[in-house]
């Protein structure tokens, strides 16, 4: 028997019944000074791409900010996550990820790792095609294929067990031809009762072990480059880092003002400069410029988000594919994302630890306070501190699909913030460098629900 249906009279095109979002005005007001950072970063990478032609030694490294050491050693340095993030931010990650996928890397693997491994595959292909260590001209138009091949690798990954293995695999992709040096950074787990952020016996002891490894790293670099290490240059580099960091933190502190003169997104735009650009006066000038602009905004009563009504903290690693989009999205709801774990608890965030007479110890300490290298106890302490500093109303947890290191404590942190400060939160899905994991509905519904909860909370408080 066939089921007879009446002929369809209605059009199957239902688009007219859909809710059409009108073009919304951009309520975000980003700092102008960060554009200078964008130019500096672009110049940095352009310089890297020609490193081989200039006869420079190239180091590929992953994890923490070893660049002041590389700079003092006269190397050119390529940071794996940074390059993956750049590709994603420019929406150019596709070719590298496709190369990685073809090689066999599954989509659930850390998207930084698989993007960078894809770059390694492409660069290695260039080498095997005998293009003098640089990818062939055919591929030159693809940014992902432009990395110069390494002379050696250095891994110094904090807080994530994937990091070290990722470089071990990169080493293999290049046929185990290039030397690899591992700096092992133990977790600051907080085993003892006296443990806490920058305190306790675990904290006192662990940096000394890392400092010793950094000395060995320098010996390794000297061996590779056949050049004595320039210790004075390292101290000089750390002077600039310290100065830049102080300015950055002073500028961040100004954002405790309500409405905030700058947002988390401005600090995201400033990550590359502090994380891997050469340490020099330009770096200091950049953060001086950012601070000056923020001070000017405070004087002129200019806010970073029109009609700031909510102050939100961002927990999770950055979704590089969506930087501009998220900036506008939160502002659309009168939300100023003021601070975040990724920006505020990373990247030379404790300049007082830097001792120019003993630079390696301060560096070791910074590497260990990477915001994914703590146990829960310290992360709870840091989250509450930031919430208090910046008058936070709510927390956006970016459930970063392929970054387990960042997502590890998030559910418990959400409970802690609610329990100890009554701070509401929501989770949304996304990823660092793979746009396919981002779910707009997840952000939209979660954000709206959280803001309604905050409104209710405020109403009750007024009664």
């Amino acid at each position: 028997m066939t089921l007879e249906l009446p002929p369809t009279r209605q059009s199957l095109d239902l688009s007219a019944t859909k809710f059409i979002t009108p073009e919304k005005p951009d309520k975000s007001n980003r700092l102008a000074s960060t554009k200078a950072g964008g130019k500096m970063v672009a110049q940095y990478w352009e310089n890297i791409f020609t490193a081989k032609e200039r006869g420079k030694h190239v180091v590929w490294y992953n994890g923490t900010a070893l660049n002041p050491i590389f700079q003092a050693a006269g190397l050119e340095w390529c940071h794996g996550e940074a390059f993956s993030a750049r590709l994603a931010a420019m929406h150019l990650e596709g070719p590298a990820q496709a190369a990685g996928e073809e090689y066999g890397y599954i989509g659930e693997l850390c998207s930084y790792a698989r993007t960078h491994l894809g770059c390694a595959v492409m660069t290695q292909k260039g080498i095997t095609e005998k293009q003098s260590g640089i990818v062939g001209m055919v591929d030159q138009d693809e940014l992902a294929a432009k990395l110069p091949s390494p002379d050696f690798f250095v891994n110094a990954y904090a807080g994530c067990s994937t990091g070290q293995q990722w470089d071990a695999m990169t080493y293999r992709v290049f046929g185990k031809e290039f030397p690899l040096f591992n700096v092992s950074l133990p977790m600051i787990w907080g085993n003892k009762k006296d443990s806490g952020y920058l305190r306790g016996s675990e904290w006192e002891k662990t940096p000394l072990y890392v400092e010793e490894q950094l000395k060995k790293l320098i010996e390794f670099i000297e061996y590779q480059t056949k050049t004595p290490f320039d210790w004075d240059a390292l101290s000089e580099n750390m002077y600039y880092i310290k100065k830049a960091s102080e300015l950055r933190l002073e500028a961040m502190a100004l954002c405790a003002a309500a409405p905030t003169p700058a947002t988390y997104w401005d600090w995201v735009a400033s990550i590359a400069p502090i994380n891997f650009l050469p340490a020099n006066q330009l770096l200091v000038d950049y953060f001086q410029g950012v601070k000056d602009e923020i001070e000017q905004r405070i004087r002129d009563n200019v806010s970073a988000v029109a009609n700031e009504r909510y102050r939100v903290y961002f927990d999770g690693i950055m979704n590089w594919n969506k930087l501009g989009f998220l900036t506008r999205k939160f502002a659309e709801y009168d939300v100023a994302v003021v601070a975040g774990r990724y920006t505020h608890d990373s990247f030379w965030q404790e300049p007082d630890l830097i001792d120019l007479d003993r630079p390696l110890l301060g560096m070791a300490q910074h590497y260990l306070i990477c915001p994914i290298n703590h146990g829960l106890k310290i992360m709870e302490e840091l989250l509450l501190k930031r919430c208090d500093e910046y008058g936070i109303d709510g927390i956006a947890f970016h459930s970063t699909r392929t970054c387990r290191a960042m997502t590890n404590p998030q559910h418990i942190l959400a409970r802690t913030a609610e329990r100890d400060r009554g701070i509401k939160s929501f989770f949304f899905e996304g990823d660092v460098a793979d746009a396919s994991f981002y779910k707009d509905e997840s952000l939209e519904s979660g954000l709206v629900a959280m803001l309604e909860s905050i409104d209710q909370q405020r109403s009750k408080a007024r009664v």
Partner: protein
Amino acid sequence: MTDFRLRGFSRLQAAAQDPIGYARSWKARTGRPVIGSFPMNFPSELVHATGALPLIVQESRTPITEGRSLLPEFYCSYTRSVADQAAVGELDVFDAFVLADHCVQLLGAADVIRWAKPETPMHFAQFISSMDDPWSGAQVRDKVDALRVEVEEIVGVTVTPEVLGASIRLFNSNRRLLREFYDRRKSGALRISAGELQVLVKSSMVMDIEEHTSILNDMLDGLDVDSAAPASLVRLHLSGHFCAPPRVELLDLIEECGVLVVNDDLYHGTRYISTDVPETGDPFDALATWYLDRNVSAPCGTRVQRNVDWDSYLVASLEDSRADGVITLMAKFCEPLMLYYPELRRVLDDRGIPVLLIETEHEGLAAESVRTRVETFVERISRKKVAA
């Protein structure tokens, strides 16, 4: 023929199926503490030397409930299960937890335990995962000491070299016996399924080691030589799963497809029993040596060592067992295996060794889909053998 299954196997099976139940009854029987540790490289001998029961926390078969709101869905089944067990009170039997390994997902689960059971001591002595650096040995030795101090404090007993030495000999003896089952299977002298072998190894991670050894001895005693397996069966090596055991149903299903599993490098298998602790010299040094040796005798994809490769170890192992192919069992979201698998596949492909990847999950087994894939894989190998 003497059937080993008649000689205590059911006791091992009961412990393997219900580790928490075993721990409860052991604790009631002895009045001594139970200390939970985590895969993959914890030296259980150290806990045993205090008189406590060292028990490697196992993935539970229970569906995940409370744990869903504590760790994201995109975590491996073992860590989500551990978090869930902590949240629902399944882990209350443990008097303390000690960790040695640094797997980023496992650390998430460990934090959930600390949060759910704040009164229970938990200690993390991170063993270095870069194995061939000049400081690796000293680092591991240092962490062994940190673990010693911690377990001594928890149990209230000082671990002397003599007592630790005795514990080391007991564990070595247990591993040797387990390897005997493996060797007999490989040589064709014993027909034992992959699932049954898993029971033997898994129960050794759970039970009092002397009790376990006694049962193993009894099982081996008088065991006759089996008739050889039919030559028509395709000989396979099972690879992967660094932490949790693959489901026994999955192993059975694979073997139902005309397969003879002749070896593995699974954690609940060869990897766990691969290496003995040196019995001479300082026993604390010996535990550190064991950790470093272990990655040489059975390399793990979670370690970094330039002069050791899991893939070349696997190829040598295949030659030794005369396996025709490899089934890689990948726990979904296991990053170390996701990272290493392309290298593994490349080396096997280069040598013309067939490999099949099966992703496993905590809940559910797509049995018919897996069966079809394994049957096709077996057919492919069979045709290749005929052609050769």
